[in-house]
């Protein structure tokens, strides 16, 4: 194991890691917004929009991110729309993440018993008040496990960004292997980088999940 090599190239990995995290963060936030919107549309079964979001969800869940990125990065320019690698990465991530988040939130909304809504209405609360004080708090806590899984999933998906020329962790690793043949060192640093990013997140979410568990909803 060439320790000097590792020391020399650690900064490169850190920079790539930061890039990965930055794009992941933007992508996750975007996915949450898209997801919330879609889940509410599907929960309240708003006509027309419901079909459109349904189609969107099926398309994005049944196709790989790589193809979505290739289409955005290599395909769109042929139709006159040129996007930077970073923009493609973010758009692709939100396109994919939005549908996953939507399903997570929708299962949360549907897990809240309709009798809870009726109990709220019977107290004389307006529909808006019932959604705000009774429905959403419960829906959110039910969604947490799926939400956590999605966050981790999206961060893992960022590993394909190197395919659209983004200098992320995979790009750096592949470069170093190709240029210096220091495969073991490059791979080791790669694995450690992802462990550093994902292990803490995974642990924090397990902790939150355990805290938020109440036995039984509605009764």
């Amino acid at each position, binding site marked *: 194991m060439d320790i000097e090599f590792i020391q020399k190239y650690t900064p490169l990995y850190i920079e790539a890691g930061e890039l990965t995290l930055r794009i992941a963060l933007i992508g996750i936030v975007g996915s949450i917004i898209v997801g919330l919107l879609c889940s509410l549309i599907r929960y309240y079964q708003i006509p027309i929009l419901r079909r459109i979001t349904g189609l969107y969800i099926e398309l994005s869940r049944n196709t790989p991110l790589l193809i979505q990125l290739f289409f955005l990065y290599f395909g769109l320019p042929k139709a006159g729309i040129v996007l930077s690698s970073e923009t493609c990465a973010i758009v692709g991530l939100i396109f994919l993440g939005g549908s996953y988040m939507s399903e997570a939130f929708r299962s949360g909304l549907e897990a809240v018993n309709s009798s809870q809504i009726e109990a709220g209405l019977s107290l004389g609360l307006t529909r808006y008040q019932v959604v705000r004080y009774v429905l959403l708090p419960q829906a959110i806590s039910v969604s947490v496990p799926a939400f956590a899984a999605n966050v981790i999933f999206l961060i893992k998906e960022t590993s394909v960004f190197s395919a659209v020329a983004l200098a992320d962790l995979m790009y750096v690793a592949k470069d170093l292997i190709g240029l210096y043949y220091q495969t073991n060192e490059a791979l080791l640093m790669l*694995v450690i980088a*992802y462990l550093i990013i994902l292990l803490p997140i995974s642990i924090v979410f397990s902790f939150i999940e355990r805290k938020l568990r109440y036995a039984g909803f509605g009764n």
Partner: protein
Amino acid sequence: MQDLGISVLFQGKNFIRLLEGLWITVRISLISVAISILLGIILGMIMTSKNPIIKAITKAYLEFVRIMPQLVLLFLVYFGVTKAFGIHLSGELSAIIVFSVWGTAEMGDLVRGALESIPKHQYESGKAIGLTKLQIFGYIIIPQTVRRLVPLAINLVTRMIKTTSLIALIGVVEVVKVGQQIIEASRLSVPSAALWIYGVIFFLYFIVCYPISLLAAKLEKAWKD
């Protein structure tokens, strides 16, 4: 100009090559899932053991495979194994190994969960009507476990099919790589090929994965306890 673009699909054997590439994708996924189910059932049973060492090892294995992006695992096997043991693994074999390791971990966890969630009184009722341990396992436990597993296994197939797109990045000639080759070859004759080829590949994945997800959803609903 747009007409010119879509014509690339009908040139030569382009479309056939795409379908052949798609078949490679599906084949890799199916082989990997088959291996995963077999090894996963064994792993799942092992994981129900109370032995702390076994629990620690299996848990570490599970967490590692869960946390590492599949592409990283592919790199580890494709580049790392070659360097470490001197054998050169083909991209396709690397993919099957990685997917099987991934699939086994997931299936193993599912099997363990299914086995542990079967209420104790199922075992007890079996004993109460005089069945042997093996019979209880065969007639009561396994059928219920299978019901929970199959929809999830089918779901795993779709995820693997999508993930095989990554192996284009380690040079395997599957559908994405074929697409890239076609685009490269048509660079002069059909400059807008990229738009159409990737668009078509997008839908090819959809056409393959969507019916499978529908099947999984149907089965899950039909077999709901």
